[in-house]
């Protein structure tokens, strides 16, 4: 039996209801990327203000389901003020969390609040929702012009 409360954790519902850094485009944005899953319609624009390798400010716009919205919101909180290398490391850790079974996941990996995304692993159809914002982040850091998709 699936317990939907593992997927729709309270933190997820909270970030869905009141997304942080949303809708927002920092005035000095110098890195942007578009994440779009055409089949399901989740559609976000991520904006970063990066100076000397530090993500000084971040915001996102668009619309999606609770999982994709909360994931994006949690991500913006987690990367704000961090350097690019740290953000890339978080991407790897979240990617691992969403795709590897809990047994192989690194315990206490310092993901903090982001660990609530781990409930998604039991819902394979929704992994693409949780990972969209993160792949968009990667595209923004690498300054890719083409929209990214996780479908």
């Amino acid at each position, binding site marked *: *039996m*699936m317990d*939907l409360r593992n997927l*729709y954790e309270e933190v997820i519902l909270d970030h869905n209801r009141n997304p942080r850094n949303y809708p927002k485009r920092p005035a000095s944005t110098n890195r942007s990327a578009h994440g779009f899953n055409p089949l*399901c319609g*989740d559609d976000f624009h991520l904006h970063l203000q990066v100076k000397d390798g530090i993500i000084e400010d971040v915001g996102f716009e668009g619309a*999606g*389901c609770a*999982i994709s919205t909360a994931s994006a919101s949690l991500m913006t909180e987690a990367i704000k003020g961090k350097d690019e290398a740290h953000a890339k490391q978080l991407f790897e850790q979240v990617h691992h969390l969403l795709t590897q079974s809990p047994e192989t996941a690194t315990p206490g990996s310092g993901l903090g609040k982001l660990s609530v995304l781990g409930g998604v692993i039991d819902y394979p159809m929704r992994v693409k*929702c949780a990972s969209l914002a993160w792949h968009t982040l990667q595209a923004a850091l690498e300054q890719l012009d083409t929209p990214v998709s996780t479908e």
Partner: protein
Amino acid sequence: MSQPRERVNIARSTQAVFDPYKARRDFPILDQEVNGKPLIYLDNAATSQKPKTVIDAINHYYTHDNSNVHRGLHTLSERATRDYEGARDTARDFINARDRRETIFVRGTTEAINLVAQSYARPRLEPDDELIISHMEHHSNIVPWQLVCEQTGAKLRVVPINDDAELMLERYLELLGPRTRFVSVVYQSNSLGTINPVREMITAAHERGIPVLLDGAQAAQHMRVDVQELDCDFFAFSGHKVYGPTGIGILYGKEQHLTEMTPYQGGGDMIKSVSFEETLYNDLPYKFEAGTPNIAGAIGLGAAMNYVSGHGLEAIEQHEKSLLAQASDAVAAIPGVRLIGTARVKAAVVGFVMEGIHAHDVGTILDAEGVAIRAGHHCTMPVMKRFGVPATARASFGLYNTKEDIDALVAGLHKARELFDR
């Protein structure tokens, strides 16, 4: 030379009251649990389930009769050809085409529309000619016309819809103009359920000598279709939505049009003779059936149409109308629900959004309850934009659905509300 025949439908005159509880036992797939709950299948607008008689027909074909059609001199080929062509006769009867040669086997509605766009419209279009579609078309009745517009310089005109998702007929009549060359419109909308006033639309187009294609992908399984009475020039539908297999469908076209059209694809079966200097095309319907066709699919579709006709489309329509009324009222009564698609004339499709809960989350929560619906844009992105929503949840009903299925849907939606409001 086959002669026009009177429509014969033995099932209709002797029709008893339709019993959905009995009918659902014809569908083996419905007898299962999903996530520990009995499966409630409410995604019929995406694809319908298959009755045992269809599964058996396909199984029988591959077990006993598999062979290529129209070629072999041996017994199996004769049987395969007989059953394949028998399915064409069934299709002719199902939509009451005048002649069996007017029913072409295609992969589905999408291929049928592309065929008409490329083989009928494209050679006739000149720059600034106009094609008319509606705002509620499935992408498969938008993109083939955009392609043909790119190829010819013709322009696409779109009939708007009102807030109840009804096609604005007066605007359609205004759009019909001296440059209009073709009208392609959906009979019944997949995402909204709206049934369009196609008779008036066809009459108005014909008064100006403009041919009309009806996208019948959502119509043929829900209401009796009579292409002669409708007087449409083309009618397209898919097997898998009529309780038949995927990968097979029917394009109906008036014989005169089909005769004048160039082939869509070249290959075997569509030719009379081939030399490197000249190729003589085959007669209808084979001119449009290049290559070895989906023989098993056609035979399965024939069985599906016989199954549906056995119940009688009037009886099915009546049953589904009753489901629509109950489901619309019950879903609309849930707090924070907004129905998308409230046309006065509509089929058993209930599209909706829930305040604060994205359609995908509704879909996941219902799936945990064993209830299968569709969530997304339903390949009608312009419709989503028109109603200002990124996606809708959609429950779409078929002949085997019952009042208890609606109860399960409503219970699941209340669970979603509770989960998100906690």
